[in-house]
């Protein structure tokens, strides 16, 4: 055993600590919006079937990093991303990667519930339709029901699937958006402050849902609420001014963080 090189020892230790596989790996990720730099060489890994929370004060780059993970930043005109992000073994910024396929694998739920102004059924069925995941009416019925079940919305809406999705309450709309994301069977679901527009009861329901979704999906969630990060996540990453300050197990992060800035932020001294 003492023949083992130092690197190999470290690797073995790492493996023991993180015996959960890494789903996405971000290496030296930097983002520029025109002249302005929003992220500085962020190295952050996302573990499989884990909820990773990104916290930090407003404008710290946590949403920017999240949007790098499914290349939503591509839709912003003067945004430039450097560094490397992999999903399993694929470099997602590789020119050969199809962004449409990437976004089918990495789904997204937005801050404000944004159902399409169509029926609940059509909202959920839209993703499977454009990705050719379902062919027959029965297929669609099945995927719609399964997705709404997953999102915990089925019992509330099963009698009014053909009413408009915009007629639901805010919390129901957000769960509909989650069902819509789930319907294309993604591997990773990104959530950008999914509860910031919801009341506490709806928030509790969504958090419960996130907890259940973890068994099937890898989740990355941006949140402003420290309590929420503590409640739903297993890993937490703290951003400040475009830098990744600290990444740690959530328990450790909220009890004994390694970095003074994390401590200060969690205690409410700034932010």
């Amino acid at each position: 055993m003492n023949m083992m090189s130092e690197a190999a020892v470290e690797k073995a230790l790492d493996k023991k600590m993180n015996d959960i596989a890494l789903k996405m790996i971000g290496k030296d990720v930097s983002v520029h919006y025109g002249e302005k730099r929003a992220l500085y060489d962020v190295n952050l890994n996302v573990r499989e079937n884990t909820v990773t929370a990104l916290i930090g004060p407003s404008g710290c780059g946590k949403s920017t990093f999240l949007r790098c993970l499914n290349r939503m930043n591509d839709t912003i005109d003067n945004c430039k991303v450097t560094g490397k992000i992999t999903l399993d073994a694929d470099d997602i910024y590789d020119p050969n990667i199809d962004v449409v396929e990437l976004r089918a694998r990495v789904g997204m739920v937005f801050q404000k519930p944004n159902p399409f102004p169509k029926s609940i059924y059509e909202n959920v069925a839209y993703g499977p339709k454009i990705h050719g995941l379902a062919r027959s009416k029965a297929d669609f019925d099945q995927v719609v029901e399964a997705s709404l079940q997953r999102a915990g919305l089925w019992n509330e809406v099963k009698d009014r699937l053909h009413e408009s999705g915009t007629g639901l309450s805010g919390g129901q709309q957000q769960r509909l958006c989650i069902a819509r994301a789930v319907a294309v069977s993604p591997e990773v679901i990104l959530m950008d402050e999914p509860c910031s527009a919801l009341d506490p009861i709806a928030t509790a329901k969504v958090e419960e849902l996130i907890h259940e979704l973890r068994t099937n999906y890898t989740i990355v969630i941006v949140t402003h609420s420290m309590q929420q990060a503590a409640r739903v996540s297993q890993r937490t990453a703290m951003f400040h001014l475009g830098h990744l300050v600290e990444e740690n197990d959530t328990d450790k992060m909220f009890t004994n963080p390694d970095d003074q800035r994390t401590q200060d932020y969690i205690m409410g001294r700034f932010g």
Partner: protein
Amino acid sequence: MTNIVSPVAGAVSPAAAPRRDIGIKRRYAAERRFRAYGIAAITFGVVFLILLLSTVIRNGYTAFQQTAITIPVEISEKLIDPDNKRATDPSVLIAANYPAVVRDAIVKQLGIDPSKRTEVREAAAMISKGAPIQLRNLVVANPALIGTTVNVTFLADANIDSANKGQIDLNVPEANRKVSDTQIGWMNQLKSAGAIEKQFNTGLFTSGNSSRPEAAGLGVALVGSLYLMLIVLALSLPIGVAASIYLEEFAPKNKLTDLIEVNINNLAAVPSIVYGLLGLSVFINFAGFPRSASLVGGLVLTLMTLPTIIIATRAALRAVPPSIRSAALGLGASKMQMVFHHVLPLAMPGILTGTIIGLAHALGETAPLLLIGMVAFVADIPGTPLEPSTALPVQIYMWANEAERAFVERTSGAIIVLLLFLILMNLGAILLRRRFERRW
């Protein structure tokens, strides 16, 4: 004066609340004044609208009625086919002396001595000069009528029509009027015999143009305007919407697209007569399309309508919330799927409203049509957009230049028809908007 020293060093004395000079009275007065200005402006507009509509309707409603004279006509063989050759030579039926048949009929009805030529001529003038042609068509279609007496309804001459509608001032000396006292007497005689009556003026919608007001109609103009609208709709809607989608959703934002945007806005403000000149030189002189054809008119009006549609469509696309776009892209929709599945349906009400406003504008446009020759005298209804035609506003323009009294009511009647079409189109725009409107 002694300074009261505040008990706490450095603190401002809270004794007197800061005097607030917010001028509540002045503010309310300003608000009242502004409301008064607004009401005055609206009243001014409404008064003129009512004035316009009441003038047009007062002058024009009579155009929808037409005086007709129904008299028994003896279709005598002696006058039409004296040599009895119609079995071998049908052209005698066409060349026959129908004016004499009509004249004899009215003379007989009024009981005038056929030897008094002035009176006979005056009596014959009471019936439209189109009557002999009407009779000829009747006989040619059914030669069995020859030798019988049938009741035929003829249009009255335009002057008798005006007199019957009370539009001729009988206090004017007889020599200065178009209708003589004798004719008025005969008219009343026919009236008491029940031979003269006002009927709905179907000819106004079906006949082509004519120099005889009683036979002039909007048929050609209506068909011409219909062709124009169809061509403008078929060309400007797809081109305009495609151009705006490209500019708004796909084109890179750079100096070139800025320049294009500025130019589109400028084109919307170019006087329409300039488009007429463009159409004349490009479509008629260069491309060799026929003059006076509604095809060329439609192309010119398409060019004129495009900027309006593009501006309205871009505004409608921009009004679709970005969250819908993110939602579609986040699900893995391509940009084109995002546009056609989500953005375009939501922008549809705005696009349709813009399109119909553009079409309504094109429907009322006169100047460019004058330059491409759509101001011609066209009597036959065009079968295709390549045949000579006029359009509603041009027909109004032409009738407004006519001298006869009967064209005055027809001009206003045509304006009413045009306004009705515009109201219908705007109603359509409102209904479509309601139909497509969705909440998000």
